[in-house]
């Protein structure tokens, strides 16, 4: 009797383990949306006009040979149908192309495709990505810059985003004045490989405005909490502080700094601090929180004396302070 109970118990335990395993597998398969489908769709199930990847390999072996290293190979490995995977997933049905023995006019060739058509093709799969949900209204799209202007699917130099060149070289081919700024003595280290343009910018279109009021938001990539991109690295400037330098929150870091590069130390917009500070702190009516002017310094400051010309010597916590409304400590 005892023996029988133990057999039943062990059988039940084994069954539970099997059920658990089965459940885990089912869950994985459901979440993975069909992981174990075959690689090649049988010819008889091909939709009208499609020929399948195998046919493409015959004439384009150089493209196919290393395609398994391409992120788009995932669709092939998953065994998705030709409309949504492999060569024809992007280039469209190839039957006419094969029958005509090639030619750009018989297939969706991105080299001759209008920018909007190229964008729409890519968005068929990539529209669901959150950082691209404003691409339709982005400055790049408005300027007729299609995906394949920056991305090279078959000859990429960066495996992560399939860019046609390193970001530090790619973006400046159009933004040449920014290239000059990164060559200045004081700059963010983009050329040095420490950071990339996309650390601060979203080339696919930014979301809400954070600071400033004008349209020109320069595709700024915000922090996860939708604050200025600068604080992602410069965490000590984020606050909150008991006493904020209002300019930082209202007009943003760019009120005083040139973010790409500058001829002035600390990426400042002026070579000395007092000219920078006094341009706002001049007491002119109509400005400031109370519209009575941004306060001037007190009579104890003698601007003819060089010791008063470096404001941040004393106002050390200029980005915000917890202890002093004048940012002295």
């Amino acid at each position, binding site marked *: 009797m005892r023996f029988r109970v133990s057999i039943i118990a062990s059988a039940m335990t084994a069954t539970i383990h099997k059920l658990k395993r089965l459940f885990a597998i089912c869950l994985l398969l459901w979440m*993975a949306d069909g992981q174990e489908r075959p690689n090649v769709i049988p010819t008889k199930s091909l939709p009208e006009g499609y020929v399948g990847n195998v046919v493409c390999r015959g004439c384009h072996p150089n493209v196919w040979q290393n395609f398994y290293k391409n992120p788009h190979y995932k669709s092939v490995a*998953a065994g998705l149908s030709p409309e949504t995977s492999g060569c024809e997933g992007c280039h469209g049905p190839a039957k006419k192309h094969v029958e005509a023995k090639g030619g750009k006019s018989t297939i969706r060739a991105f080299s001759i495709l209008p920018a909007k058509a190229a964008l729409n093709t890519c968005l068929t799969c990539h529209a669901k990505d959150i950082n691209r949900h404003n691409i339709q*209204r982005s400055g790049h799209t*408005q300027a007729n810059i299609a995906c394949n202007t920056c991305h090279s699917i078959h000859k990429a130099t960066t495996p992560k985003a399939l860019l046609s060149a390193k970001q530090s070289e790619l973006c400046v081919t159009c933004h040449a004045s920014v290239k000059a700024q990164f060559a200045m003595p004081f700059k963010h280290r983009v050329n040095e490989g420490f950071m990339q343009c996309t650390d601060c910018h979203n080339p696919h279109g930014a*979301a809400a405005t954070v600071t400033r009021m004008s349209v020109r938001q320069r595709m700024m990539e915000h922090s996860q909490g939708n604050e200025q991109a600068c604080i992602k690295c410069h*965490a000590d400037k984020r606050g*909150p502080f008991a006493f904020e330098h209002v300019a930082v929150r209202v007009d943003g870091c760019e009120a005083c700094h040139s973010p790409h590069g500058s001829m002035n130390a600390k990426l400042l917009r002026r070579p000395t601090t007092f000219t920078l500070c006094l341009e706002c702190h001049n007491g002119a009516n109509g400005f400031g929180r109370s519209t009575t002017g941004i306060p001037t310094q007190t009579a104890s400051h003698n601007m003819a004396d060089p010791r008063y010309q470096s404001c941040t010597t004393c106002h050390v916590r200029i980005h915000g302070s917890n*202890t002093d409304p004048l940012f002295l400590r």
Partner: protein
Amino acid sequence: MQKLLFLVVVSTALILGQPTVSPTPQQAGTARGDNVGDYNITTSFETGYRFYTVDGNGGMYRSNVNLRNGIRLLGGSVTMNSKDGKGRYFDEINLTLQGLGSDPYQSVFLRMQKNRIYRYDFLWRTSDYFNPALSVSNGRHFLDTTRQLQDHDVTLFPQSKYRLFFGYSRNLQEGPGLSTVQYFDSRGDEFTLFANIHRLRNEYRMGAQAEFFGFGLNVLHGWENYSEVQTELLNSPSPGANPNDRVSLNSLQRIAPYQGSTPYWRASLIRNVGKIFQANGHFTYSNGQRDFTLAETADGISRNGAAANRQITLSGTGNRPASTGNVTLSLLPSDTLTITNHTSIYNIRISGDSTYREFNGGIANLALLSFQYLGIQTWSNQSDVSYRISKWIAAYGGYQHSDRRIRSIQYRDLERAKGLVPDEQTNKLDAGLFGLRFQPAKRFRFSIDSEVGRTDHPIYPISEKNYHSISGRAQWKTNRLTVASSYKTNYNFNSNALTAFSSRGRNASLNAVVAPTSWFNLDAGYSKIHLDTLSGLAYFQSGQLVTGNRSAYLSNIHAINISARLTLKKRVDIFGGFNRVQDVGDDRPSSGTSIPNTLINQIDSAAFATFQTFPLRFSSPQARISVRLRQKLRANFGYQYYGYNEKWITLQDYNAHTGYVSLTWAF
């Protein structure tokens, strides 16, 4: 020997190069890699010795460049790809390294993924941040810190309709620094303090994305923790920066721990499946809170020559809840027409209080409760229409209206705060956009963009008030030649009865890339960046308020870069280039000479004239040679010169020679 090597390298290079000395881009060995089991593996490592010499201001060199002597892993990469996309534990591993050893900029990137199951991205970066005692703080501030940044991101089921995200980021800054304090009052002296800096930010996040009925919903929740413990000390008696006064300090200790958290939520709803109508919304809420305390003790001699000591204790809290949201509606009735409306709102409330207690000579002297509230609410709506008129011409136009309201309450001492009326400022912006795109030939395109904006109450004299921007771009692109040029102006006029501010920025650039053969290419560019501003000033000079003065700043930057790559018989790669950035200022021959007539009527104070322009030249020619020794082995040599030359204040000038010798090995 090093100089001889420099000469050999320089004479071999045809043209000198522009980026920082960095790992040689050429890969050793075959790019296709080796097959091991079901995987294809490629590896490449470049290791060598870096060296430098500096003549002049070493502090400024460290601030700008900071390459030092030593053995480095200059660069490296490892990739593993499963050939059928069905690896057991992973389908791809991609590891990229740069500058490991003790280069000032080091990074490691790792991507590991199994198709449809998971994807893991890891980025580690560190920078050796050196900030010398720059003139902007009278030479009394200094930093020699390292900053380490890490980002870990895991995505589960990345190709599925249901995805999960987990992430962790860490940002650490540590090292010594110098700061200053003014004692014992606002007419006292400045004293240099040693600062021990430790700042740490940790961020944890998790989220999910689901797609249903044509919608995508993405939700992310994160927690950011920040702590800062900065101790500042004056260990030995100091007469202060001004030896002519009687103020001195015997000692000062200050510790100011500061910490808190910022939990945040982000939710996005996307609908991009429709061909005619698309919509998305994006909402965030974060609630930052920081607690702080400060304890400071100092003793010395006051301005009156009397012995003085002061203790300060302070504590308080800062809060900043921020809500943002935006909704974008796009209508695409045809392939040629796109109509978009974008609405966004940004609402932030900052409040902080601090209790300040001061003891002078052991007697309670001052107790203050300070409070500050700052609320900023910005609402913005923009509509734009983009229409392709024909195959070669397209136009777009838009209109934006923004409304910003700022409320502020601040006081010290509760009793005096009774009946205080909060400050309030509102500002409205109306802006229009217009642009044209032309593509008369397949390889040629040009565009014109413009924006005009008006605001009624800009918050600062330098804020945008009456501004316009016009820019144009032209590009000719073939497989072997790309020529691009751009021109942009940004003008802003912001003035009232008492002051005037104008800012005029003009950028022009021309860039060409020629690649006539597979073994040669040439890249050359020129940029002119101009900025002139005119501002109203008010300041005190010898106790007298000076008003009505103006300050004019002028910057004229010319930047040129040229670089070339040459491959000889698939065995030798030569890269070289030249880069130079020069601000010619207002063309004055020296700071002591008179300013040009064009500016003479705009600058009223001689005290400011010196600082109206800052002529400076920074040049960095470079050469790299890479020679294939064997199938999978290359030898590399690199050299770069940096010359920093200020025209008027030459104390910060330097000339630096940097270089490296390395081997690139693939196995």
